């Protein structure tokens, strides 16, 4: 059964004008089921059933095309901590990825320049899809190491 595990990050909107604003998520795990990550600004209680509209602070979504679990033996899906010198093989497929979501318009609408705000990331899996997968693939889905707001002038 899918149970969302949202994460919240506190960020600061720049006081200066910007032409583009990106929310960058570093170290995003993609080893399990595919999911949508919904972004809510200044909504500490956002959940999978929260409306994605102006009132809820919805700022956009990103999608993770999941690796679908591990089809190998023990250790097969654990990325090495370090690469040896002269290891010219492709990188391990489960190295966490970076996601960049362009939120320029929504940031302007929802956050006053120079003010702090929160971004709540809510994972979502369609119920019928979650029901078809083993529990380990939809549990603890959202893992993100760091969240940054990057703006461009």
């Amino acid at each position, binding site marked *: 059964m899918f149970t969302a595990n949202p994460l919240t990050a506190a960020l600061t909107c720049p006081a200066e004008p910007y032409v583009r604003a990106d929310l960058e998520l570093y170290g995003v795990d993609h080893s399990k089921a595919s999911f949508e990550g919904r972004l809510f600004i200044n909504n500490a209680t956002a959940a999978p059933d929260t409306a*994605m509209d102006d009132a809820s602070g919805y700022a956009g979504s990103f999608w993770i*095309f*999941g690796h679908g679990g591990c*089809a190998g033996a023990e250790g097969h899906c654990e990325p090495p901590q370090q690469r040896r010198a002269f290891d010219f093989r492709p990188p391990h497929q489960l190295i966490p*990825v970076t996601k960049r979501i362009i939120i320029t318009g929504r940031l302007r609408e929802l956050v006053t320049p120079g003010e702090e705000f929160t971004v709540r990331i809510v994972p979502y899996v369609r119920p019928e899809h979650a029901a078809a997968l083993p529990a*380990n693939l939809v549990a603890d889905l959202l893992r993100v190491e760091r969240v940054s707001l990057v703006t461009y002038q």
Partner: protein
Amino acid sequence: MTNPDNASGASPRRYRTSVTGLTSAQVSALRSGFSKMRELSDDRGYEYWAGIHGLPLPISCVHGTPFFLPWHRAYLYYFEQHLLDVMPANAPVSLPWWDWSTQAGIPAAYSGAATGTAANPLAGAPVSGIPDAQFTGQNVPKVASTSRAPGLTGPGHGTFGLPSAEQVSAILKLTDFEDFSAQLEDLHNQVHMWVGGTMSEIPVAAFDPLFWAHHAMIDRVWALWQLAHPGSGTGSVPHNHPLGPFPTLTVGQVLSVTGLGYQYAAATSSGTPH
């Protein structure tokens, strides 16, 4: 489809066209090609090529990096070559694209029954050739055939739906390859999840025949971006990087679709000079 401008055979370049623009003869040829590939149990067959993407191990697809677009262009190229192999010369076959941003729902050619009593080979396929040991209980469950559970559709598709034409237009304006690639890959992910079922998970997604039309659309959007931003390159991706497991192709060799023998056409018109 063979380039009508080169019908004399001077150039074998093909046009990939929209699934909604296929003639009934082209739909029949496409279905015939997929059926013939499914009949081959060796490394020319559908099972083998669907399995390259995910299971059976090794999972070879590349996602979440700037290699996403070059790798999938090479993948479609090899698949299409094998599709051409099973068809008579000059058969009207190429991989069509599914423009999910303007065509709501699963394309008609890929759903429902084929003519007569035959099953439509574009509506689904067996998920086969994967050793039981690779369904470990820690990954996607074993299934006998592909399935779909499409999401909502409607005007603008809504927040639960498919990417919009406006979203595609917006990313076509991006000027940096890696920025463009990452945004296009996210729309790609969204479509995989919208289709649902088998398409939703990497290990088995490519067994769904719709996978190829979806990825032809992704490849087309990249080609359109390349036309709009000539000389834009591939960012940090080195052109001499090999695209395994496609031994004859590097990143540099897939930068030009024309060089690979195909183009994307919204429409073609030909005339005989006199």
